[in-house]
């Protein structure tokens, strides 16, 4: 009986698609957790949400035009990310409205293109909600490459990123090229959304950018510690969520988000007033 139970625990791994899926989900969760630190501390949750919608437009357009997904959606995503960053940085009146219009228009364009020219229903569902069945070896390679690139860039630009996040005005006069640093961050965010979208899906990806980092914020008062606690929470909840989805027969992305949310609620309950107050002060753009 014990051997049957142990065998059952490993059953999902008999399927290659599941093994691929759990690898991608775990790395993607960690990657989202890492960049989520900047998203949460800079109050960019809305931008992350909008950017995932913009990338969807690029994904749909590249599918319809027969362009490679990573190239088409990648270029579209990076351009959208840098533009959104510029709009937000200029703090123009109605910047949030401008971001909302641009990103939802991109999303709507993607939907319309898929309706008109694509294999509509299947493609739309896969991109909106993620699809573990659609994970291919190239997806694993892409998410690994973007993760390595992100870690290298964060290590190389650690202090500039920290300074520009905490105090952009003084960073600028101290010689940090804040506009450049922010463009870099938006490009990293776009690439992250691009390579994780096929697993987690457009609609839920912003949750993975926000929940692990917010949970980490309640647990620590240190930026450096947040940078490893948040990816750890992201990776573990994504892996566990993916695994649980097999037995629960639920959507992988939804189960991942729900797992991360459960961890958030548990930490919120245990963190005390001091821990909770740390996320109460996080501002949003």
């Amino acid at each position, binding site marked *: 009986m014990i051997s049957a139970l142990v065998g059952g625990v490993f059953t999902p791994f008999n399927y290659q698609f599941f093994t691929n899926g759990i690898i991608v989900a775990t790395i993607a969760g960690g990657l989202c957790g890492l960049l989520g630190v900047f998203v949460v*501390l800079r109050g960019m949750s809305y931008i992350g949400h909008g950017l995932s919608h913009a990338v969807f437009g690029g994904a749909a357009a590249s599918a319809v035009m027969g362009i490679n997904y990573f190239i088409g959606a990648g270029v579209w995503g990076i351009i959208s990310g840098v533009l959104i960053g510029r709009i937000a940085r200029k703090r123009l009146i109605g910047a949030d409205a401008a971001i909302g219009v641009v990103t939802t228009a991109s999303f709507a364009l993607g939907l319309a293109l898929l309706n008109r020219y694509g294999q509509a229903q299947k493609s739309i569902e896969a991109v909106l909600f993620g699809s573990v069945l659609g994970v291919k070896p190239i997806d694993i390679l892409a998410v690994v490459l973007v993760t390595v690139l992100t870690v290298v860039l964060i*290590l*190389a*630009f*650690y*202090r*500039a990123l*920290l*300074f520009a*996040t*905490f*105090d952009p*005005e*003084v*960073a*600028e*006069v*101290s*010689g*940090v090229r804040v506009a450049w640093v922010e463009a870099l961050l938006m490009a990293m965010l776009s690439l992250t959304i691009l390579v994780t979208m096929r697993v987690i899906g457009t609609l839920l990806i912003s949750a993975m950018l926000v929940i692990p980092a917010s949970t980490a*914020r309640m647990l*620590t*008062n*240190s*930026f*450096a510690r*947040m940078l490893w606690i948040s990816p750890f929470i992201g990776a573990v909840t994504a892996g566990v969520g993916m695994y649980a989805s097999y037995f629960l027969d639920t959507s992988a992305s939804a189960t991942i988000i729900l797992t991360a949310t459960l961890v958030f609620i548990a930490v919120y309950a245990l963190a005390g007033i001091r821990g909770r*107050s*740390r996320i109460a*002060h*996080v*501002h949003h753009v």
Partner: protein
Amino acid sequence: MSPEVLVECAHISCAYDSAFVVHDVHFTVRKGDFVGIVGPSGSGKTTLLKAVLGAIKPQSGHVTMKPGLRMGYVPQVESVDWNFPVTVLEVMVMTRSKVGRRPRITAEERTAALEVLDRLGLGGLQDRHIRELSGGQQQRVFVARALFHQPELLILDEPTSGVDIRTRHEVLHLLADLHDDGVSIVLTTHDLNGLAAHLPRMVCLNREMIADGAPIDVLTSEVLEKTYGAPMEVLLHEGMPVVLDHGGTDVAKRLGKLL
């Protein structure tokens, strides 16, 4: 440019969205200066500071700096996110943000930062989160960060805004000590009696330069009315000019508090 001149703003005009915030202002900072810039809200004080810092380019006129000038900038404490997860030491070394610098704070950086913190009476607080400090300590941490590079010119935006009287005294004494040590200082303030009147030089600004000189010469009813657009009286108390704001006494009269 004379070697004594640190920054010269030659007839600069700065605009946001085509509306002039600073118009044809000529302002020179010399070695040893301790200048307070006063003026109403929206008079262009912060814009002038940013022009001095080289953070904004004027629409007309030009800013010339002494080659290799080291400047330190202290922003308004109200603009700081005190909940941000950083310690005092991390705030200090942030200014060393050149690409390729390792995330970990080096022993040399730590020693140099602790020296500055000790000098400013913040010894032992290096590992505290910035939120855990008193108002005076928070202000001094940002002064300490600006001093980390041993600036020749220290620029402060509203250093006593939103602080209590005790903290204001602490900040004033700290700035006086730094000035004694040879640091030139330019600051903006709304505090005419508590801060500006005590400085060797003050500038009255309201988009245009209204006056520039010693407080005893600059603080006159005419200059203040031109600067603030409201009647003010200036009295002398132990040789120091004291500004009386008639707005308050008018209200008190209306409320029957005065005879």
